[in-house]
């Protein structure tokens, strides 16, 4: 094969007219695919408080708390987004499927204290 410099020139000149491949996020929305694992969604009514999710969480980010008074069972799910690694193992292991992963990914914040959230059903 003959070697010469600037072999890419045809491709480069062709690109002058084409549309840029750059996604202009945040000016334009970033599209995540359907299968993306983002923030969790929690259905408190279906939860039985078995805490399998807490047991399997590799990052120790999730906590199920019983907030009901006098033995009543009302569960809340506290998630530390700073610790969560978005593996979705909690959703996999949940026997009642009350935890689900959603597509939400815009979770960045400039304040660390807002990362610890109380999950609610969306």
């Amino acid at each position, binding site marked *: 094969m003959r070697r010469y*410099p*600037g*072999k*890419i*020139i045809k491709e*480069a*000149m062709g*690109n*002058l007219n*084409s549309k*840029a*491949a*750059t996604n*202009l996020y945040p000016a334009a929305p970033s599209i995540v695919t359907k299968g993306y694992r983002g923030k969790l969604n929690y259905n408190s009514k279906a939860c039985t408080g078995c805490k399998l999710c807490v047991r399997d969480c590799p990052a120790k980010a999730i906590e199920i708390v019983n907030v009901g008074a006098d033995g009543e069972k009302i569960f809340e799910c506290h998630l530390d987004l700073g610790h969560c690694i978005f593996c979705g193992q909690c959703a996999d292991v949940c026997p009642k499927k009350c935890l689900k992963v959603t597509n939400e990914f815009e979770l960045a914040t400039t304040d660390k204290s807002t990362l610890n959230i109380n999950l609610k059903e969306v």
Partner: protein
Amino acid sequence: MSIFYLLVFPGFLFLSALGLFMEYFDRKVYARMQNRVGPPWYQPLADIIKLVSKETIIPYDTNKKMFAALPVIALAAATTAIFYIPIWSSHALFSFTGDIIVVLYLLTIPTLTFFLAGWNSNSLFAGIGAVRNLTQLFSYEVPLYMGLLAPAFLASSWSLSEISQFYTTHPLLILLNIPAFIVCIIAVQGKLERVPFDIPDAETEIVAGSFTEYSGRYFAIFRMALDTELVVAATLLAAVFIPVFVANPFISFLIYLAKVFVIIFILAIFRSVMARIRMEQMVKFCWRYLAPLALAQIIINILIKGVLPL
């Protein structure tokens, strides 16, 4: 009037504005070739403003006056060179016999200041960058000079204005100088330290070369000097190799802008289609191919001058 020339047009203010815009144009073309969006038109200016507002750190153990003076010298030298180059007519603002040599030397001064800046920075990477600066200077300077002097031989003048006038009256002879133009375009790429000859500031090897220790406003002035040098070098090439002037100075000025755009577009293409080569490859390339080509051009020009009744 001289003050106006120096500070506003075609001096500092005009050159800065055009330099920044050309940097934008260069970056935009580069980005578009890479299938990216590229920066907005004000990006180079925003960069300069940001740099000026940043904290300036002068390294311990350096000559502080020299550290601060070098960027200004670089900018001043590059700006001065524009007065001897014909822009909107085949007459430059100032001219005397031998000004082509002065312009070339004025364009060499920024490179020397880069070397001194690197050497003075007292930093390892800057030091290596400085040495590379000089090595590179020795390889591209000779082909660049020979390439620019070849048209001068044909015009039998050492003044840029006279060279321009000669080619305006003999337009067909421009075509003869095409090999010299190619040599000069490549050598200018080396002078401006752009890919494939960005060896002195190869970021993946020696961080930022000579400018490693520069920050804040001093670095901003160096950036301005580089942009100015880009425009002045393009203007020089345009004046010598594409001397197209019309009587109306305004239209002539527009033509000048178009010429600069074309040259910078060519430089941008060079930049985007090649990998950075090594120092020893650069020296080999310049001395093995560029210098003989320029020499051949000079010989041909002298021969033609003997044949043609000029």
